């Protein structure tokens, strides 16, 4: 069982390495740091531009494989992710941003799974009841709304609430307020800023779990083993939770890993709308500034998030699925 998890984790590690290196080559091909110098006055010559980029390992005259090898060794041996075309260290930028985005994505993922599965259990045991129909309609509608529209709708409602209901704890911009001192006020302030972005990300995330988990549960809810469980004296809701849900949760657990890239995409848009200085916004900035190393670091971060989600999903599968434990 431990070996199963370790083997899976090794596979994911390999995935991160391959994905990050592939992104390095893609970024080097598609981003051109030289174009940053095009608008500068006085006009730089080609050699001047190359010389300015050389210290940051971005000199286009150097073969791509050399640049890649320098970058790769510095990441592996010093965990140094390189520098932007203006000489800013990527490591210094991603440290706190990774924390901000990680917290957003992980909290939203956990909330999505919990809310989605709970809703699925509730509605599946009342199939075609009014609660089932209403939540089904709401979920299908939400499933089709673009993240940007949903997040902006949340902003709109929050501003309206702030103005008309006199609320003061809904923040639509930034990840913290300036001038907050002390440990507990800081934590409280950050949590309040988290509310709306997490809400809009969760809104986008829970739907998939609700719809798939509901149909999975409907497949198992009338299975013989659930009826047997009820025959031993369990109530119907207990039988569903302990027996039907347990079997139906296995595919959901594996799908968590595949949903994290989508969650990160949502985070890119949510961070842009809520003005968070997280990895998502950093990614957009790095692309528009032709910052190869920053872009690659963001992609690596996203791949790492996916891998963490996948490993957690594998561990959950080990607990849920006895077949994995036996083999």
């Amino acid at each position, binding site marked *: 069982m431990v070996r199963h998890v370790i083997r899976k984790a090794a596979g994911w590690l390999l995935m991160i390495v391959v994905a990050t290196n592939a992104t390095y080559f893609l970024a080097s091909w598609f981003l051109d740091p030289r174009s940053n110098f095009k608008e500068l006055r006085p006009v730089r010559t080609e050699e001047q531009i190359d010389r300015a980029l050389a210290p940051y390992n971005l000199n286009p005259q150097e073969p791509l494989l050399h640049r890649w090898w320098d970058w790769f060794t510095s990441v592996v041996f010093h965990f140094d992710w390189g520098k932007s075309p203006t000489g800013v260290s990527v490591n210094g930028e991603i440290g706190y941003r990774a924390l901000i985005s990680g917290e957003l994505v992980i909290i939203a993922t956990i909330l999505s799974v919990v809310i989605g599965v709970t809703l699925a259990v509730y509605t599946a045991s009342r199939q075609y009841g009014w609660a089932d129909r209403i939540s089904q309609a709401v979920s299908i509608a939400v499933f089709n709304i*673009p993240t*940007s529209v949903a997040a902006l709708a949340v902003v709109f409602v929050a501003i309206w609430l702030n103005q008309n209901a006199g609320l003061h704890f809904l923040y639509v911009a930034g990840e913290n307020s300036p001038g907050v001192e002390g440990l507990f006020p800081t934590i409280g302030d950050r949590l309040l800023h988290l509310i709306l972005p997490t809400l809009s990300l969760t809104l986008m995330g829970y739907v998939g779990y609700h719809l798939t988990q509901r149909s999975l549960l409907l497949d198992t809810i009338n299975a013989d083993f659930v009826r047997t469980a009820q025959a031993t004296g369990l109530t119907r809701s207990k039988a569903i939770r302990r027996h039907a849900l347990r079997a139906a949760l296995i595919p959901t657990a594996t799908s968590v890993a595949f949903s994290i*890239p989508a969650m*990160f995409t949502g985070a890119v848009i949510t961070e842009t709308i809520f003005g968070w200085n997280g990895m998502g916004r950093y990614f957009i900035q790095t692309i*528009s500034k032709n910052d190869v190393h920053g872009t690659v670091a963001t992609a690596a971060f996203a791949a790492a998030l*996916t891998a963490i989600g996948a490993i957690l999903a594998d561990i959950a599968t080990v607990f849920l699925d006895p077949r994995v434990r036996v083999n």
Partner: protein
Amino acid sequence: MATDVTTDASSGATPDPAARVTAPGGKKNAPDLGLGRLYLRRFLRNRLAVVGVVIFVLLVLFSAFGSLFTSYAYSDADFAALTQPPSAAHWFGTNQGGNDVYASAVHGLQRSLAIAVSVSVLTVVVAAVIGSSAAYFGGRVEKATLAVIHFLLVVPSFLILALVSHRLAGDWRVLIVVLTVFGWMSTARVIWSVSTSLRERDYVTAAEFMGISAPRIILRHIIPNLGSLLIVNLTLGVVATVLSETALSFLGFGVQTPDVSLGTMLADGAGTITSAPWLFAFPAGLVVLLTVSMTFVGDGLRDALDPTSVTGAAGGRR
């Protein structure tokens, strides 16, 4: 619209009569009821799907002929009316640059529809060829294809999409290619898993014994029998493409000014949702109408085309 799609489905499925058993329910109706009529009847029984078709047709008509009702073009700037709320002259109001929002919405919807439909068609074609080839050839080809698909599925493809389209896009035709290249994987996986059972069928074995080449078997015997699946994925692909196109354009990586799509209009309106809500409300409404209607159509098609589907067989329980 509905008749078009359903007759397509039947012609796609008929080249190989052995493949398709007559759907249950066909028997109790009049014997002359063709497959196309049967599909149409089942589709029309689903009220939401019919509503979806109506909304979608209205949207297409709006994008095609909406510009006839206004004297403004999306690129015209009316400097006498900057950020005006909806009025008789500007039905949907104007934006900060004085562009008529109605004209922009017509053009943006046209752009988004063109991108969504062509990407969806291309994606389904690519996915059908790759998915069914992987299933038919099996062995090492299958393993390698699946490895690539799984890898691309877990890699945050949106990031790569943004990276690539930032350099190339601005031109919506390039965006179509980029969205197709990074969008075929999940459909291909579904098609692969269905095709694995098709490759064992008698008619495929028979074709092999007759010495028909592998590409021909895939094109003539396997892909036509995926017809219903492909059509359903086509409609759902439109939804997925609209969502990713709006996301990309919203962030500034998709369609770029001076061109207009629904995504760029959303981005324009994002900053002023309290002071000028009409800038955001109209494109947002159009996007949601488009995706919701296509989802309804997709669900209806799935129920109508798939004989084993529960809702289709049970006679319109919704």
